[in-house]
């Protein structure tokens, strides 16, 4: 490989270890793995953009519904209380913990929702084999950066722990939003696994 200015266009470097490769996307259902550190570079699949798009759309609908429907109800000694996910997100707001409210609302509702919106925006034209929409690279970069901060699946574990803690204190009754949230955490995880980001970057560039 040379260092001439034209040659670098076809090269990629492993994001984890910097090993240099010629950027050749393997055939569908094959993986390109970094020889040195074992990181998966490309893992393209037949129709994966459409599959990821469908998952993302499902997640978006579920987030919207799960936010407003009754999430969990409790009752004890004739008193009862029902919370939506939105109430949970705002639970720190009556004290000096407003920043924590924003963080919790972000991690369980806003960031997951924004991420799937950005992914839909990025992938829609690629599926239709059109030019990417304006600022698609920016949209996809933000969605990638938000990945560790979208914590729907961790929230579900938190719900499970909370239910056990409550069980001795009051009667607990999961509402529709509870099941929607479990489904959305599962689908969001599957969606992340189905998306190969280097393939998407390559597609954004090629059009």
């Amino acid at each position, binding site marked *: *490989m040379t*260092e001439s200015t034209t040659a*670098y266009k076809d*090269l*990629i*470097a492993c*994001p*984890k*270890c*910097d*090993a*240099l490769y010629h950027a050749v996307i393997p055939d569908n259902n094959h993986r390109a793995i970094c*020889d*040195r*550190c*074992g990181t998966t570079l490309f893992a393209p699949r037949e129709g994966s953009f459409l599959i990821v798009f469908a998952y993302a759309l499902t997640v978006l609908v579920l987030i919207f519904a799960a936010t407003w429907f009754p999430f*969990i109800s*409790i009752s*004890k000694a004739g*008193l*009862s*209380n029902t*919370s939506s996910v939105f*109430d*949970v*997100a*705002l*639970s*720190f707001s009556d*004290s*000096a*913990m407003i920043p*924590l409210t924003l*963080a*919790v609302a972000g*991690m*369980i509702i806003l960031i997951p929702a924004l991420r799937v919106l950005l992914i839909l925006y990025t992938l829609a034209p690629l599926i239709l084999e059109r030019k990417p929409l304006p600022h698609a*690279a*920016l949209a*996809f*970069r933000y969605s990638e950066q938000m990945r*560790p*901060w979208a*914590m729907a699946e*961790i*929230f579900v*574990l*938190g719900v499970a*722990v*909370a239910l*056990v*803690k*409550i069980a*001795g*204190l*009051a009667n607990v009754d999961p509402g529709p939003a509870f099941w929607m949230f479990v489904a959305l955490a599962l689908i969001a995880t599957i969606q992340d696994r189905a998306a190969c*980001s*280097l393939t998407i*970057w390559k597609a*954004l560039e090629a059009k």
Partner: protein
Amino acid sequence: MTETAKTSGLISCTTCARVWPGGQSHCERCGSALIDRDVRGLQPVWAWWVAGLICYIPANIYPMLRTHTLFTDEESTIVGGAAELIAHGSVGVAAIILIASVLIPVGKFIAIAFLAVTLRDRKRMSQHRRQQLYEVVEFIGRWSMVDVFVVAILSSLIQLQDVASINPGPAAMTFALSVIFTMLAAQSFDSRLIWDKEDQA
């Protein structure tokens, strides 16, 4: 010796993997800042690490939950809350809390410090093991947030006037900050540094 972007005088984008001539400031494909790891080094890692540790101390001293029932008013810390769960027989759930709020954060502080301190000491651990350790730290760190969510759920749900109510304590805030800061510490650790030394040897 493996040929890398750096040994070829290029700079690589850690977001989209594209390479550019050395010295370029931004990736033209995805717009990310191109970071020269020799210039930035480990300073941001240590800055976030220290911030995370400072927040982790009050997170364990102050109460996480304030529980009010008809006859009692209790405050419980992270470890205290887990101990109560064990006393009630919920050993599995107590284990989740202890793993997420004690084992993972403490393990993370040690692992990040180990990776950063022994970067030049290759005899202690192979590069592959270091890479694996780093990936585990990056993957698992977010799960510490679970206890903050538990507090959020309990305090929004358990609001039954005088019969039972739960409110967050100050530790919820500092614990959340500690998790966020250590996540940022892990993210700002450039795993390419693990592999660079081979090239220089």
